[in-house]
């Protein structure tokens, strides 16, 4: 009420200071309002501005505001001190308070809108943080109205003048100048401070903290304020002694200085290292064990030091990715009016990225290695007063000692590197603002504006609230109004784990859950001597207890004997084994879970506890004194308590592996989904990345059972590539991908070629293999030679193809005879193997042979030629069949019946028999188009049903040629097949750069071949993983909304991936290949597109 009592009060533009002050006491009510106001629809209603209106305390109305926003506005306005409805007409005077409010709410509304047209880059982080700033202002008005209501009760209008002082003190800058009581002039602090505070909201540290404390005193001493009421003698009012009922409102962190990668506290020095992520999933167990033992040796090498292992997260920098993909896309598909353009496409992808909340892990390891002498810290204190910090001599000395850690940690295993000062700042900020959103505009890699120390200054804004015996800590960012409840869980009893074989790393495991969490592990590494002494002491205690029992003539509990024996065994291991076996890690492991509300936080904690106890048999405990525990996450702060100390061999600590990750794909391609293994990361795939950056072939293979989602993925990749301006050709024999061409944004740039209705000669085999051009080769004699070789290779390939096609066209009984092959070879040799030759030449050549068998073959071929489909092979191809102009070309063979390869060829119908050569030649045709344009331009060709290539010489040569040419022609080739054996049998797997394996549950043999294709160890249990991909929930009647694949990228990383392209509007509808969907879509989406054929 007091805040905006006069229109002139500058309530509007100081959202942050208001929010700051009023947050402290009546927070819960304000919190409820916050939740309601998070709803953007509510925040945007004009009535929301009503809260800022001066009025007598009337809490019930405030409550009504969020629930029914529209009527709330008039009701609050009615409560204004000047009770006139006409005031609305004079916007200038009246609207201020409201507009002030609106000024805060506006960014929330405006930013998302502005994001859409703003193009790729800027749209990224904005929507989320922008919604928040509206908050801080809201609780502020709520507080004063609620409070005085209790105090003053049913006071009459004059009451505000009396009641306002306390509220005004809490919100000094909003206090109406006109209200100023003469008495208050005697309190300089209350009046002058706010003004300065407004001017320097962030910088003035001590002042703001003082002020934040003020409410505490006020609230605890209401009676004194009563006495102030009596306006008799101003003398009686003393300037209030600022007594802190609370503790000091701000405490410095223990860390006093960051120098390079070292942090100094008064007593200790810690060196910090950055541990890069390591791959865990789908690696052979031997490799994993080697990794773990390397890490445990590194830990053992740090014996005698205290370690602080911290894992924090960073939201995925979606904007950075968008910028990358935009730079890598020279000429995106021109926008079609009325459809989402390229920029909209990117914005949608970023929105999607942000909405699924991917977080990247960052792991830091701190080694506390030096105790500082009294002299050192005194010197530092002294030098600090001169603005210089830790003495140079000490730093130089430490610089030498710290090098040993570089050596230990930089080796294979952790491969740690020194952190930079900025990263330490980031870690400190993230630790103070535990589980809170990182500063909005901070996109850690591309930022250029965060100066040194800025992030640390931001820690000033984070307030912490505790409740006695509370199970969460509440953190409030005064600047953004963000509120977080954090529960810190401690690792309790652990059952034995079999880490590489059966269990996941136990501190990586939490990443299965979809929200980001933070880890803090403090351990003392004990070397062999220490740990043996420690254990021996314990053994002696157990023995003495046993002796005690014996002396008293009581049976000792059997566990004592068991434990003593175990201690003996361990002691023996320690004395005789390697130092690695004897080193022990005694320490505390905590996981922090955050939530927007206490309920959400506790629910998350409950799920985490459940997950750990069920899957890993680790019991996570939720101790009291959460505030201490939360503080423990901050580097340099003391350990919260000695409870839940875990004593373990360093092997087990190494197997915690918080830095494990599951990334796959490049970071410059289209967003195709997320990893679905042990953690969630976005997956990007640029199919030209292997050729353009890694200099590998661009052959990508898709293997899955029918229904595994191959075609959909193929179509989605084709669509995304076409959006980026890549020339895409998709061969889809069954035809559903043709509907892609009907998508409005692609329609003008795409066309469908239906082979079943095409002209004669479309598939003429001779012309399917292009003759190389001289210009494709280097100048000089060497180039000439290469060119000649390529030309003769093309000829040989043509002959091979024609022979194979002829063999496919004749009945299998004839094809099996030895003379057939000889005659065909002879005839093909007679015909010049040039592009201009035709199959008719071969037939006539056969007919001219003075051999009955030859004439018979010629007649057989002519017989087949009578079938309409076979006419595609004969004659010359029409000109301009597949020009390079269309961005997306889909070749279909709608209506063609594909034979079942498991059935003998003799039993195929004539049509099925014809499908085989058609598919062969159609594959060639699809690729043929790519040789038309320039060599360096990006091309993509997707070939479905490639398993028909198996068993034919020309098939193998086709794939080899494709893989080989892919680099030269910058051609990404996607080959989908039902059986990995096709690829393995063709022996081209060395040329394969990307592999997608979908669900394979039926055949264990196929599964193990698929694993071979992925280069994942066979018989390690990964077959079950393949079978469990895209498993439908048996209890649900709806269709499975996603498809999962195991993906191997060009860098050899293998990961389970869940394909999700739902962010592209309408794409999934067009790609749906299920019969029901096709039938449903028949009215809307053309299944056969005669009008679109060229």
């Amino acid at each position, binding site marked *: 009420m007091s805040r905006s009592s006069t229109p002139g009060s500058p309530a509007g533009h100081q959202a942050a200071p208001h929010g700051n002050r009023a947050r402290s006491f009546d927070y819960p009510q304000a919190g409820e309002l916050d939740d309601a106001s998070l709803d953007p629809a509510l925040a945007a209603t004009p009535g929301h501005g009503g809260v800022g209106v001066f009025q007598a305390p009337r809490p019930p109305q405030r409550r009504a505001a969020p629930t029914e926003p529209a009527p709330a506005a008039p009701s609050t306005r009615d409560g204004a001190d000047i009770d006139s409805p006409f005031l609305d007409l004079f916007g200038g005077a009246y609207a201020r308070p409201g507009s002030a409010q609106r000024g805060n709410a506006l960014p929330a509304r405006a930013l998302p809108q502005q994001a859409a047209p703003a193009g790729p880059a800027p749209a990224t982080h904005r929507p989320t943080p922008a919604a928040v700033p509206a908050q801080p202002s809201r609780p502020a008005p709520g507080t004063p109205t609620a409070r005085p209501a209790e105090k003053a009760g049913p006071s009459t209008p004059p009451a505000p003048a009396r009641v306002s002082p306390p509220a005004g003190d809490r919100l000094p800058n909003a206090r109406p100048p006109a209200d100023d009581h003469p008495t208050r002039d005697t309190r300089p602090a209350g009046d002058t401070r706010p003004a300065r505070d407004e001017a320097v909201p962030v910088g003035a540290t001590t002042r703001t903290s003082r002020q934040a404390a003020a409410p505490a005193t006020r609230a605890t001493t209401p009676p004194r304020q009563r006495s102030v009421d009596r306006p008799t003698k101003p003398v009686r009012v003393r300037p209030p002694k600022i007594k802190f009922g609370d503790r000091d409102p701000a405490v410095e962190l223990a*860390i006093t200085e960051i120098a390079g990668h070292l942090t100094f506290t008064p007593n200790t020095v810690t060196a910090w290292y950055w541990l890069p992520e390591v791959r865990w999933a789908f690696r052979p167990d031997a490799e994993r064990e080697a990794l773990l033992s390397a890490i445990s040796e590194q830990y053992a090498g740090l014996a005698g030091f205290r370690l602080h292992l911290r894992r924090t997260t960073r939201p995925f920098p979606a904007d950075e990715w968008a910028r990358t993909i935009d730079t890598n896309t020279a000429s995106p598909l021109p926008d079609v009016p009325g459809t989402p353009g390229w920029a909209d496409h990117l914005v949608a992808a970023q929105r999607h990225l942000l909405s699924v909340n991917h977080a990247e892990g960052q792991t830091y390891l701190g080694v506390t290695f030096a105790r500082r002498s009294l002299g050192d810290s005194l010197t530092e204190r002294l030098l600090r007063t001169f603005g210089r910090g830790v003495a140079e001599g000490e730093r130089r000395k430490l*610089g030498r000692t710290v090098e040993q850690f570089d050596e230990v940690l930089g080796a294979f295993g952790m491969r740690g590197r020194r952190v930079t000062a900025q990263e330490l700042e980031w870690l400190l900020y993230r630790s103070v603002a535990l589980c809170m959103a990182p500063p909005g505009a901070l996109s850690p890699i591309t930022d250029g504006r965060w100066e*040194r120390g800025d992030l640390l200054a931001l820690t000033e804004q984070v307030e912490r609230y505790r409740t006695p015996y509370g199970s969460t800590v509440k953190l409030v960012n005064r600047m953004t109004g963000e509120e977080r409840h954090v529960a810190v869980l401690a690792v309790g009893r652990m059952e034995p784990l079999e880490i590489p074989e059966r269990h996941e790393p136990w501190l990586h495991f939490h990443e299965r859950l979809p929200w980001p969490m933070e880890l803090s592990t403090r351990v003392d590494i004990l070397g062999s001597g220490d740990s043996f002494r420690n254990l021996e002491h314990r053994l002696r205690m157990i023995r003495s207890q046993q002796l005690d029992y014996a002396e008293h003539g009581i049976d000792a509990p059997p566990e004592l004997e068991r434990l003593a024996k175990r*201690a003996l065994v361990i002691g023996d291991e320690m004395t005789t084994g390697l130092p690695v076996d004897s080193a022990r890690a005694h320490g505390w492991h905590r996981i922090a879970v955050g939530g927007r509300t206490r309920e959400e936080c506790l629910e998350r904690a409950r799920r985490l506890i459940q997950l750990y106890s069920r899957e890993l048999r680790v019991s996570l405990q939720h101790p009291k004194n959460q505030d201490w525990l939360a503080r423990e996450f901050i580097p340099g702060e003391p350990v919260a308590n000695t409870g839940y100390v875990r004593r373990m061999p360093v092997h087990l600590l190494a197997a915690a592996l918080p830095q494990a990750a599951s990334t796959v794909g490049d970071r410059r391609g289209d967003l195709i989904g997320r990893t679905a293994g042990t953690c969630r990361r976005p997956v990007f795939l640029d199919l030209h990345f292997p050729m353009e950056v890694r200099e590998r072939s661009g052959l990508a293979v898709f293997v899955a059972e029918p229904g595994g989602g191959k075609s959909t993925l193929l179509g989605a990749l084709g669509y995304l590539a076409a959006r980026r301006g890549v020339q895409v050709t998709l061969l889809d024999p069954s035809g559903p991908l043709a509907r892609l061409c009907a998508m409005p944004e692609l329609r003008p740039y795409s066309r469908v070629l239906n082979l079943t209705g095409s002209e004669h000669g479309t598939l003429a085999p001779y012309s399917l293999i292009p003759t190389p051009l001289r210009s494709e080769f280097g100048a000089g004699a060497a180039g000439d030679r290469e060119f000649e070789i390529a030309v003769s290779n093309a000829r040989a390939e043509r002959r091979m193809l024609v022979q194979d096609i002829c063999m496919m066209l004749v009945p299998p009984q004839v094809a099996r005879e030895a003379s057939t092959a000889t005659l065909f070879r002879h005839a093909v040799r007679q015909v010049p193997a040039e592009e201009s030759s035709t199959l008719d030449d071969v037939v006539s050549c056969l007919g001219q042979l003075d051999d009955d068998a030859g004439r018979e073959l010629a007649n057989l071929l002519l017989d087949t030629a009578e079938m309409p489909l076979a006419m595609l092979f004969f004659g010359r191809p029409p000109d301009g069949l597949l020009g390079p102009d269309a961005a997306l070309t889909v070749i279909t063979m709608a209506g063609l019946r594909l034979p079942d390869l498991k059935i003998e060829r003799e039993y195929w119908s004539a049509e099925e028999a014809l499908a085989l050569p058609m598919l062969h030649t159609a594959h060639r045709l699809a690729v043929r188009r790519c040789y038309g344009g320039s060599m360096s331009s990006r091309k993509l060709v997707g070939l479905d049903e490639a398993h028909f290539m198996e068993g034919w010489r020309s098939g193998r040569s086709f794939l080899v040629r494709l893989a080989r040419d892919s680099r030269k022609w910058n051609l990404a080739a996607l080959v989908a097949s039902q059986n990995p054996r096709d690829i393995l049998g063709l022996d081209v797997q060395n040329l394969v750069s990307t592999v997608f394996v979908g669900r394979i549950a039926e055949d264990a043999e196929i599964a193990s071949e698929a694993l071979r294709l992925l280069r994942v160890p066979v018989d390690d249990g990964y077959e079950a993983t393949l079978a469990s991909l895209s498993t439908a929930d048996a209890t649900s009647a709806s269709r499975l909304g996603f498809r999962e694949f195991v993906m191997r990228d060009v860098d050899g990383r293998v990961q389970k991936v869940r394909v999700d392209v739902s962010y592209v509007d309408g794409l999934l509808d067009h790609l749906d290949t299920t019969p029901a969907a096709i039938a449903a879509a028949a009215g809307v989406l053309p299944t056969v597109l005669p009008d679109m054929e060229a």
Partner: protein
Amino acid sequence: MRLRTDDDIYRARLVYLGPPGYTLPVHLPYAQYGLFILLVPLYMFIHWLFTLQVELFPAWEIALAIVTTSFVFRYVDPDRPARMVIRTALTDWRRTREPAAEQRDPRLVGSRIRIREELA
């Protein structure tokens, strides 16, 4: 690799059975006796504050100390040391359930930390 912690060795329950030759009827961990011995003089001191005289056999004090000890140790287990239980009780004694109002903790402020990019 089968990996297990050494915690069970440290979790062994060590109890005081009594002086040699005489077994006490109840076997309590050593830590309980320790706490009891600390509590008796504390209660005696509190008693002295009120009455300003010291009793020869502090019966009340012993009784109270026994009750307090058993109460504290109800919450103690190998993972929750007595020190922590007592400390929590002292800081949070006011309520046993989560109350509606929070108490503000001091903010932890890192803005005075000096930063240099390089160590030396």
